[in-house]
């Protein structure tokens, strides 16, 4: 059985102008120890998808359909104490912007001890010990547990966040733009750390980023999201070697390649559609270079192009 199986997940937000369909029918499976990348532009619903799995949606957001099967339980139906028992112990999250995600008036050690004491029947000394172990695991001097967040640099704070996410030895860690605010050198350090931890602890991970190159470095699987839908998913190598959807091709072409020729990368003209009133047919049709009449009328289904490689485009044929 897969560790996480998301089927036809729909997450909507109630707004004054109407219902915003942030996530509109996505599905994927994740096995133990696998890392999946979720890529897309800002506003495509990738963070909402992650928050739905953790059930951390804001008050106006709700899961409108589909299921999130995590270790045999449907997360979309779990509530109350049962939910609290799963959150952070089995699934944890590394939030976007480590700068702001830590409590500035609490010692970092205490912030990490908190979930351990809450979830496990251990005393404070054991928890403290665990925090020190976690600190050395993520490459921070264990003597720093009594310091406050402002005494850490940006990269170190991100390491604290990672230590916190690992505090209760979860099976799945969701990382939301884990390196976006960091310098390239620190980014490389953090990505290497995450990759090592993933193999060492046999963690499953979902890494969310708009930066395909970051995902290329860390993930086994890759899902490309556009306007609330997954338009392509496969193994990371396969998506880069053999992209099918025009949007995926555009995203890959948008990257300047420091190893390649010195030329300005292509951009994708236009803006993502309004998700309160999404266009009929293919949602990418307004920006697509190969758009035809059929794209404006019918929504393309996600079809299996090659074994394990899915794409949603009218001009993609299964190859067997």
């Amino acid at each position, binding site marked *: 059985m897969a560790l996480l199986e998301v089927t036809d997940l729909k997450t909507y937000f109630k707004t004054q102008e109407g219902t915003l369909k942030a996530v509109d029918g996505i599905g994927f499976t994740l096995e133990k120890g696998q890392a999946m990348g979720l890529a897309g*532009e*800002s506003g495509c619903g990738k963070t909402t998808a992650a928050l739905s799995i953790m059930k951390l949606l804001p008050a106006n957001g709700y899961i409108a359909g589909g299921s999130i099967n995590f270790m045999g339980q449907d997360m979309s139906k779990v509530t109350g104490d049962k939910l609290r028992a799963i959150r952070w112990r089995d699934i944890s999250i590394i939030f976007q912007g480590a700068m702001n995600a830590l409590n500035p008036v609490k010692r970092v050690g205490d912030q990490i001890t908190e979930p351990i004491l809450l979830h496990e029947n251990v005393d404070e000394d054991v928890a403290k010990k665990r925090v020190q172990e976690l600190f050395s695991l993520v490459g921070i001097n264990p003597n720093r547990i009594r310091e406050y967040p402002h005494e850490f*640099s*940006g*990269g*170190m704070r991100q390491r604290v966040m990672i230590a916190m996410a690992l505090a209760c030895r979860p099976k799945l860690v969701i990382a939301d733009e884990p390196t976006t605010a960091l*310098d*390239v*050198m*620190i*980014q*490389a*350090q953090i*990505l*290497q750390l995450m990759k090592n931890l993933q193999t060492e602890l046999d963690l499953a991970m979902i890494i969310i980023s*708009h*930066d*395909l*190159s*970051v995902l*290329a*470095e860390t*993930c086994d699987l890759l899902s490309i999201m556009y306007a609330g839908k997954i338009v392509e998913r496969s193994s*990371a*190598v396969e998506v*880069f*070697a053999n992209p099918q959807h025009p949007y995926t091709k*555009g*995203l*890959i072409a*948008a*990257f*300047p*390649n*420091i*190893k390649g020729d*010195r*030329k*300005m*990368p*292509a*951009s*994708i*003209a236009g*803006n993502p559609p309004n998700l309160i009133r999404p266009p009929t047919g293919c949602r990418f049709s307004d920006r697509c270079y190969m758009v035809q009449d059929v794209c404006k009328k019918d929504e393309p289904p996600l079809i299996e192009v090659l074994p394990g490689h899915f794409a949603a485009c009218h001009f993609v044929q299964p190859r067997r």
Partner: protein
Amino acid sequence: MVKDVVAVKNLEVWFPVRRGFIESITSKEQRWVKAVDGVTFNIKEREIFCLVGESGCGKTTTGKAILRLVEPTGGNVKYYGPGLSPKMIQEAAMTAVSKRRMKQEDADKDVEEGGVEVRYLHKSRMKDLRQKLQMIFQDPYESLNPKQSVYDIVAEPLVVNNLGANEAEREMRVKKALDDAGLRPPKDFMWRYPHEVSGGQRQRVGIAGALVLEPSFLVADEPVSMLDVSIRSEILKLMLDLREKKGLTYLFITHDLSVAYVFSDRIGIMYLGKIVELGPTEEVIKGPRHPYTKALISVVPKPDPRMKTEKIILKGERPDPSHIPPGCRFHPRCPFAMDVCKLKEPQPLFVSQEHWVSCWLESGVGKQ
């Protein structure tokens, strides 16, 4: 020969470290945060010169010091036009001499070369000059006032500088700036508020705000780092177009080497307040000489999982600019550090006509 637009020489921006009461009586000397500590480069006409480095290396401070948005504490910043009148040049030189900030002969040389020393310009003159020297800011989500319409944001520089005879003329100039920034037709965007336009369009509003004064030199501080990758190259292309059409010169500041690689003509790699390597973009990226440059290039993520390359991941974080290590400032993190690196600071050494590097490895010391 192509004319210089800006020439920076030994630029220093030091900030004093505030001391407590006890320390101020007991301790010896003032300590400084040496954000920029002796930076020298020039930018030629219609050139895109790029400063690359980690955050805190002083690249933004350098950009701001050129526009005197922070006051330099040492060195020179010369501006050679366009947009300078002979009267302005003469006057700037005379004032600097009369205030004993410059020697007569240096001032005469400036007049002869048609440049002004930005550092010694009087505030009111600086304000005039700043119309020619503009800045594009990093974060279009925070640099625009959410309570002002696009029109008000773009027109503000005109109001501040008292330009435009009447509202009609101002409106014309705002429309032209919006059109130049690719917000077409301008009347569709003029009365919107920042939250009503997309991220890429916001950055275009920021660019329009810089263009409205018709500058000739732009400092672009990480103009695309907050934008989605899919729209980054649109903004970069816009900046290239503007260079073609208006003959603009850019100082481009970024931490992203891959953007610098495709966009700039020459690159300066900064580390802890100093440029450690400088040269034509292609030469620096394809044939880096400084260990820091090599490390930076190696850690740029490649947009393809099949391209696994050897990474040189430097240990630790960048050191503190208030405690700059002696000798070569990079030596504590350098994988090739030798004894000499801890003692003496390396001097720039040309490895080709336009490409220099400050490293003891290049000077032959390491080969002995």
